């Protein structure tokens, strides 16, 4: 078959197949494909990924992304780095950045991950900065990049700031299981450093503060007086989960704050914070507060009912509270 008569996509495939051996037979749309196992190369993988972007199959795109990441430790590092430095399309940058970070996570040295961090912080294109930031999600980046997150949450681009916040939240939960003090402290520091109240609120409202340092707790206390209600709500939520040594102060601050606060969302978050700090011992305080704001009497009652079950884990109490809420 003459290559000129092939459909365009087949020609493309033939001209730049990642694994095509010299002298391979021409492909035909009507004939069954004959997949053969071959060695991988950076160029070949990049070509496949580029073409795969047109594929209607998310499974195929996931496969190519995984394949590049899994290949990262056996491909030549220099070729990966060069491809990364050369690439300017955000989606391709993200693939390569994820591969470079994967090398570090497999114990192949921190340099490749730092290369990604450098691009996340310094590329001129905000879409590339955002892509490089995404590629660092659920990696060990927090351990190797100094104050990178404090800088990313101040990026001029809201997309970059939002991606950085998502990294901190997901790392905190999925990489460190909410139990690693340094990871929670990095997240608190970034939340405080951010110039974007939405980012500050999203981070603080969604991380575990159980292992934070006294200094981090102090920083969160300072945000309880923020002008932005979203930040106040997140700060009181975060105070609900502080370490034992910080609990008494948090309890006092929240109980006092409830009466001064006017925003109903913040007040609701305070009720939750108090419930979390005290479990069933919070019931008397919640009873005292339930009449303060008629809009939240039902909410206070739902907490009292959930805490009365005597369940001993916060995740189960939250679930119970949700069920109580649904029943009403």
């Amino acid at each position, binding site marked *: 078959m003459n290559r000129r008569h092939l459909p365009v996509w087949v020609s493309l495939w033939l001209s730049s197949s990642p*694994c*095509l*051996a010299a002298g391979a037979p021409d*492909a035909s*749309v009507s004939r*069954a*494909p*004959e*997949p*053969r*196992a*071959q*060695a*991988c*190369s950076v160029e070949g*993988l990049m070509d*496949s990924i580029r*073409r*795969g972007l047109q*594929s209607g*199959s*998310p*499974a*195929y795109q*996931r*496969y190519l992304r*995984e*394949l590049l*990441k*899994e*290949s990262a*430790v*056996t491909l030549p590092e220099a070729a990966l780095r060069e491809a990364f430095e050369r690439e300017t399309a955000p989606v391709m940058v993200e693939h390569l950045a994820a591969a470079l970070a994967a090398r570090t*996570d*497999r*114990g192949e040295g921190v340099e490749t991950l730092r290369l990604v961090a450098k691009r996340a912080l310094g590329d001129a294109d905000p879409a590339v900065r955002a892509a490089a930031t995404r590629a660092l999600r*659920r*990696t*060990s980046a927090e*351990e190797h990049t100094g104050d990178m997150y404090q800088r990313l949450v101040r990026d001029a681009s809201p997309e970059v700031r939002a991606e950085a916040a998502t990294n901190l939240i997901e790392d905190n939960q*999925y*990489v*460190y*299981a*909410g*139990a*690693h003090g340094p990871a929670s402290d990095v997240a608190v520091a970034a939340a405080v450093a951010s110039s974007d109240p939405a980012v500050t609120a999203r981070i603080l409202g969604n991380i575990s503060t*159980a292992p934070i340092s006294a200094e981090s707790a102090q920083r969160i206390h300072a945000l309880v007086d923020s002008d932005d209600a979203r930040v106040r709500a997140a700060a009181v939520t975060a105070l609900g989960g502080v370490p*034992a*040594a910080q609990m008494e102060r948090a309890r006092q601050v929240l109980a006092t704050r409830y009466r001064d606060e006017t925003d109903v969302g913040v007040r609701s978050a305070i009720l939750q914070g108090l419930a979390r700090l005290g*479990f069933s*011992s919070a019931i008397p305080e919640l009873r005292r507060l339930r009449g303060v704001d008629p809009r939240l009497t039902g909410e206070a009652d739902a907490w009292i009912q959930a805490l009365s*079950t*005597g*369940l*001993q*884990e*916060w*995740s*189960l109490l939250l679930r119970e509270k949700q069920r109580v809420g649904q029943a009403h």
Partner: protein
Amino acid sequence: MPRVPPPRPSTPGDTTSPPAPTKAWRWRLGAVGGLLLLGVAWGLWPAAREEEAPVVGAPRPEQEASTEREAARHGAGQEVSAESGDALAAAPRYDPTTCWSDLARFDEGVRVDTFREWAAPLLASRDPLVRMYLKERLTELIGGDAGRALEVLSWTKEAGPKEFKVFAMALKDSEAVHRPEVARGILDLGLDTALEPERRAGVLSALDTQRRLSAETLTRLTDFAKDPASGEAGWAAARTLARVMRNDHARAADAAPYLDGLLTIGQESLDEHVRYMALSTPMETAPVLDARAVGRYAQVLTTEGSPDGRGAAAHNLALSEDPRRVLETFERAFGPEQDVCVRWALFRFSARAAGRDALPVMARMALTDPRFQTTYQDFERIYASGVMDFERVWLSLPDQDPYGCLHRD
């Protein structure tokens, strides 16, 4: 007393999540996994994962895929090239990955009716990535179409082991699996005695993603699971029941009918593995037990022959509508219990049941068995510090496995 061979330990993480840093595994396993591990190496705990946590216990399709990938990642670690002068320096730390020619064309053109023929060389390979892709691609091809789903189901009757796993898993994850005629077809085939037990087990696992089970299906699965003739497939049926309970309970449904079935299996099956599957799986859903379930699990504490089964019952009892009754049950069971790991379960799950209020009971347990003195002091100190959440109490313990129960053989 015969011991249940410990089920295989779980492979951490699933096969679609990105490789996490070494430290990540340490935290996940140490901090989260340790909390609810029962004393055997297969906790079932979805916390801190947004994806479905793999529920494991015996080699299943998804686990094998994951294990394959792990093997691919580390398999070559110790091999040394014979030609190399500096053998150690040249030793490859990882197996190279496989790239497939013609795969883009496969992806573009494959349909359900050409899938088996076209995918044959890929299915025959040992490349876990491409097998995962094939499974996901087949799920896409099935889509919500009941006819295509039933066609793939028909393949599972005679497919070879490697193909079979891809087909059954693809079916399980498809949208069409929720069509009543498809779910019924899977159930009928899974209960079909003409098939060998391993195949029936794999077919039944395609029901794991169901959002709920009808009363009739629940009864059929329960009866099948406890039937000695069902063998390994009975084990899979119990697991399916537990997994759908989790799916349904997550949408606020009542777990009681499922628990009832699982308890029946857990009390009546003659096979320890099946009983343990039925007794241990509710801990993942963590339902709050009503009085009836408390009564039945309390019976298991005194009648179950396997220590792992008794430990699982203690785990489930920790969450109930009547913590005081559970504390009494635990205290009564502690003295006659001879197995230190089951005693450890009764001890720590007293705290999970009643928090600080459990301390007097735990103190009396530590008087009965002085090995628990130090651990008792740890709990007392942690509660005195103001921590209440059992998860945090647990993480504050200096040693989460003080009696060597996590990996006992």
